[in-house]
């Protein structure tokens, strides 16, 4: 059972870190952090509110807010929500995926290590919706909640120089989507034709942390 009491500490002089100690992925922690982020977004005193798997960072202007009062405001929000997930109003977004073949060059690797056939891998990977836990390290990169245990697989020993935009991959227990073409070491099992990030689109971001996505095999 995950302990649901985060550590709240200073991150330098102008940010506060909320950190849960978890071993691997925890739905409880992820839900609690999303609730916290949503309530923190209701005020405009934070310069940035950045969510990750088991932590959250708020950045503030230390010229207009002291570290102590910033910390107190974050603690108050956590108290108010009792450290648990509030009512989630999840958007569920369908992501069409072409699994295997040229779009998923590492499908054979995952199939072999899991002992499943390609169609079983596809069925398993797309069975349940995933939560978007974190966006970044580059625009559009979508870090999702834990993949089914059988599909867990380490990153490639040598990262590829180019992973096409839309590639869906696995790294250890994580699964995720490359929003832009970039170098990368995830095991790629498929690709979506949707643009997760498109600077020229009226709404440039297709997803945000807290959303749920469902992979739909094509």
């Amino acid at each position, binding site marked *: 059972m995950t302990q649901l009491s985060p550590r709240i*500490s*200073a*991150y*330098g*002089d*102008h*940010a506060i*870190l909320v*950190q849960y100690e*978890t071993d691997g992925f925890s739905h409880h922690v992820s839900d609690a952090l999303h609730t916290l*982020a949503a309530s923190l977004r209701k005020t405009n005193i934070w*310069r*940035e*509110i*950045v*969510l*990750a*798997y*088991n*932590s*959250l*960072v708020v*950045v503030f*202007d*230390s*010229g207009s807010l*002291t*570290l102590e009062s910033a910390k107190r405001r974050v603690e108050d929000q956590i108290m108010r929500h009792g450290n648990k997930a509030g009512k989630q109003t999840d958007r569920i977004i369908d992501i069409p995926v072409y699994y295997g073949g040229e779009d998923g060059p590492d499908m054979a690797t995952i199939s072999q290590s899991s002992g499943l056939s390609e169609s079983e891998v596809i069925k398993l990977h797309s069975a349940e919706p995933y939560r978007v836990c*974190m*966006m*970044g*390290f*580059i*625009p*559009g*990169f979508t*870090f999702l909640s834990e993949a089914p245990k059988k599909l867990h697989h380490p990153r490639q020993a040598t990262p590829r120089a180019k992973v096409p935009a839309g590639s869906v991959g696995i790294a250890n227990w994580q699964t995720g989507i490359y*929003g*832009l073409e970039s170098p990368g070491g995830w095991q790629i099992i498929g690709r979506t034709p949707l643009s997760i*990030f498109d*600077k020229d689109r009226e709404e*440039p*971001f297709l997803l*945000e*942390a807290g959303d749920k996505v469902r992979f739909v095999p094509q």
Partner: protein
Amino acid sequence: MSAPIITVLSGGTQTTLQDAGRHGYRHQGIPGGGAADKLAFALGNFLVGNPWNTPALECALGGLHIRFERETVVAVTGAQMWAQVNGQNIPPHKAITVEAGDILTLSYTRAGCRAYIAVAGGLDGDEFLGSRATYTPAQLGGIEGRALKTGDVVKSLSVEHGAINNLPAPFVPMLSNHIVLRARSGPEWELLDMDSRRYLFTTPFYATSATDRMGSRLKGDKITLTEPLYMTSSPLLPGSLQVPPDGQPILALADGHCTGGYARALQIIQADLWLLGQIAPGASVSFRRCFDGEAPKILKHRNSFYSSLIPGFSF
């Protein structure tokens, strides 16, 4: 409106259009970016009479050659590059008038890393999420989201501006190739072994050639953790000093990744973030520990000093 004002003859090492940045999107993987040295950028705009956050050119290391297409007022601030107009030296930190056809050249920097060329009325570029700052990894803002190259034409933004200003000497930042950054502990500070904690504040590091707007890889005494760390990807900020397993720290800069997976040993204080933009490859970088309650005082003093000169500016 939006008439061509600059033609690029040579873009130099890396020259980009920058403004005060697009803040509030780190949760989408988009760094705030903007002028790497916010202070030099603001001073340039102040000199030519612009609001401090007006888009200007940021030239890293030097080598920029540009031709003005009409008469305007410009100022060069930041890194000490030998600036000339038509082969005649021009003073830094001073607004000067240039004519159509005049050529401005910046030589290699002698101190600092980035110079700013502010133009009265500002410079135009692609706008994304309310900012024209260039972010090259995702081709956002600026001129097609990339560094300037030969033949590019930059247009005037025509923002309302006032008369030119003089910069009193006490306001000119002192730059050298020995950068001292004041820091507080980062989230994983406690995981460093005792020797490493001491090295961080007592020995200088050197910025390697792997130094750009995203970060600066430093070289120096090996920094080690008491035990290997397997960290889940976590938020990362400009001014965070990360320690990867090879023990050579990486300082995140204005365009740094929004998340990272290495121990965050130090965090540069808000008042010193501007100086990150002046770390040139080869510069020495040392860290000075800020004690409890010291950082807000430094910031308050710096803010009141510069905001008395530049309306609306803060670090």
